[in-house]
């Protein structure tokens, strides 16, 4: 046994030395946007009054016009979304982490969340490196996913380290506002870095049929959402589900599976659904680079639809009666910006 262990340890030491050489001086910047998690939490902690959180994957990060929503809703909008690859569990835990009585959570999940686990260990690890507190919320299910994907994470890191995709210089610590601006987000947490840029999205028929109808998987996703709804209810937080915007060509390709999902959700989900998949199928021209990422015009259309859905499904009072609350919450964010860490320029915060 001693001989075996000696050789095994020797082999592992040799490979670790090679790995150490490979990773020497390597810094990952593929998921730089993860640092905005700090800023988004800062926003939710500093805004007073009732808030409306938009949560989901990048369809929400790219697809909500919060200033427009703020004009029409009495609640202060905060866009919490980053990427679908954080996985459903992470999104639900993050929402619960910030929500308090009187808040509204609008969940807009990419369809994939109901058909497969999208969690990327790499993204979770990168995000946790910015906000280690989030690891407190990692449940057993997600810990299992992280462990199961650990090998992929190591392989990806090795691959990119070998290609030397470096960040270059290490950035100095930034304020939350600077982080948002640096990563192309506005003060509400919406991604606006693509505004004014030429869209690159083009519909290409896919050969692979995605969205395999997996009864067991969708049942688990619904159970998670129902449990989330119960937790929200006990805290006095309202929660609704909104279908994401989806490019019409892709929508048509997966129409049957989406209809199957919609039917199940309407039968089994304990969360009100405020729109339908077909009304969220938009033309290609509204998409920026993927079938979920809206252009500036697309996000305005989507936001108006969302607001209408919220008025219909939730007893939200008119903007006029709640203006004071909204103004107060806006002013608190701007006040923190004025305190010397950044300045507001339209939708953008310009880092000093």
């Amino acid at each position, binding site marked *: *046994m001693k001989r075996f262990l000696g050789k095994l340890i020797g082999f592992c030491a040799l490979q670790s030395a090679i790995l150490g050489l490979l990773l020497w001086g390597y810094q990952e910047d593929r998921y730089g946007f993860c640092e905005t998690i700090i800023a988004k939490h800062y926003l939710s902690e500093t805004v007073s009054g009732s808030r409306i959180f938009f949560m989901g994957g990048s369809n929400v990060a790219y697809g909500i016009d919060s200033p427009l929503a703020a004009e029409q809703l009495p609640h202060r909008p905060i866009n919490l979304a980053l990427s679908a690859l954080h996985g459903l569990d992470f999104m639900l835990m993050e929402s619960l982490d910030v929500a308090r009585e009187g808040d509204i959570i609008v969940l807009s999940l990419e369809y994939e969340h109901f058909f497969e686990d999208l969690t990327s260990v790499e993204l979770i690890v990168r995000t946790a490196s910015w906000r280690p507190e989030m690891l407190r919320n990692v449940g057993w299910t997600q810990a299992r996913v992280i462990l199961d*994907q650990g090998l992929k994470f190591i*392989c990806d890191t090795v691959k990119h380290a070998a290609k030397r995709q470096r960040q270059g210089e290490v950035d100095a610590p930034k304020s939350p506002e600077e982080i948002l601006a640096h990563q192309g987000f506005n003060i509400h947490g919406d991604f606006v870095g693509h505004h004014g840029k030429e869209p690159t999205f083009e519909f290409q028929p896919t*050969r*692979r*049929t995605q969205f395999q109808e997996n009864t067991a998987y969708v049942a688990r996703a619904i159970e998670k959402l129902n449990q989330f709804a119960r937790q929200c209810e006990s805290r006095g937080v309202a929660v609704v589900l909104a279908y994401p915007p989806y490019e019409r060509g892709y929508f048509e390709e997966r129409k049957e599976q989406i209809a199957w999902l919609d039917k199940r959700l309407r039968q089994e989900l304990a969360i009100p659904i405020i729109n339908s998949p077909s009304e969220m199928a938009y033309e290609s021209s509204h998409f920026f680079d993927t079938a979920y990422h809206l252009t500036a015009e697309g996000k305005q259309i989507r936001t108006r639809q969302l607001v209408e859905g919220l008025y219909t499904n939730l007893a939200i009072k008119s903007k006029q009666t709640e203006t004071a609350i909204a103004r107060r919450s806006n002013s608190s964010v701007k006040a923190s910006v004025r305190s010397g860490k950044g300045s507001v320029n339209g939708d953008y915060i310009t880092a000093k």
Partner: protein
Amino acid sequence: MQFTTLTFVLYLGLVFSVYWLLPQRRIQNLALLLASYVFYGWWDFRFASLLLISSLVDFGVGWGLEKTESPIRRRLLLALSLACNLGMLAFFKYFGFFVDNLRAMGSAIGWEFDRVTLEIVLPVGISFYTFQTMSYTIDVYRRKIPAARSLLDYLAFVSFFPQLVAGPIERAERLLPQFQRPRCFSYAPAVEGCRQILWGFFKKIVIADRLGIVADQVYGNISAANGLEICVATIAFAFQIYCDFSAYSDIAIGTARLFGFDLMRNFAYPYFSRSYVEFWRRWHISLSTWFRDYVFIPLGGSRVARCRVASNLLITFIISGLWHGASWNFVVWGALMGTLVALESLWPRTRNTSKNDIPGGHGTWPTLPGAARMCIVFSGMCLGWLFFRSKSLSDAWLALQTIAADVLRANILRDFGQLLGDSKQLRVLLFVGVLLIVEWIQRERPHVLAVGHLSTWQRWAVYSSVFWITLFVGPKHSVPFIYFQF
């Protein structure tokens, strides 16, 4: 728990450490039993109850068979075991298939049945462990082996985690005694086990999963593919399923070696076979021998008239096809394989090759007739894989029609050139080419990474290269082993 995950690597390290620290065989067996149930319950702990039920029933039946001499009681006990195991399989694996076909037959003659739907999740590995427990009971019934006396040993044998989910399907005669005798750590098998695990990881992650992307793209939407693409995808699938399944077997055998167990070989370079009979002696050996011993021989085996032999072979292969999946394309696959083997059995006899012969024959290079025969066998297998991989029988039929229509096209060669120009397709060919070359060189050894004859630094250079290529190519997604679905 998937083999090719960090979870498994850490879990293996933990179980290995605990296992060898334990002083007695019984406590080691208990540790293995717990480890196996945790391993299995990692997918869904509810499935573990089925495993336990199947194990308990067969242990009880085995004990009953040992105690009674009455032929009627013995038959009843055997029937109980078969009913329980086959009943579980029928319910979890074939219920939907039976109901759908019954409804289709009903509507064909004008009877409309109410739609009976049950959303049944197929428990992982059920086909494997039910066959293992059934073989135990049948062997006790035939008085080939004595019944297990210790429930702990028996439960540990059935649930032994390296081979629980996708084989090799071990016989009690071979594996159970290994649980019943003391084990001590041995250096050489453990090192050999590590080599085999490393090679298994390489085959699964670097080759099988990459080839799977090509096969999935085409078979995911067969109507959009041309004949050439279907051919390439089928060849890719032929090597994908081989690398995937043999990788699982390699990791299973290697892991078992780390615990002092010797599992049977499951693959012996099948694509170097020069006849279909030889192929099935080299492919999924544990299942082929299972069907030989428990289906083919009871049907009469080869000691009957040649026509009967051929029909026995056909029946055995059709049942084997149905074992793989509850779908008509698996039945057709089985029938096709059975037909090829049966036709070969009717052919004037040539010398039978065994799995112990050198695959592809002696010599550095294959002989021309030998190479031609290998190509013919491979082509027939690819025809079978086309049915095996297709989502339905209609998809398989469409694929065949598309290939037939495209073969006669004038510009087929130009398209083939274009296809090779695609870097993805070229990489597929490169993977397959490298695999075939290293397998040919190492074909006299139990697995490709059996490099004990090399000097220390050469061995370490080989291990390190394989390790780093695996890490560098890495898994794109966590792709389950194909045979998990069976």
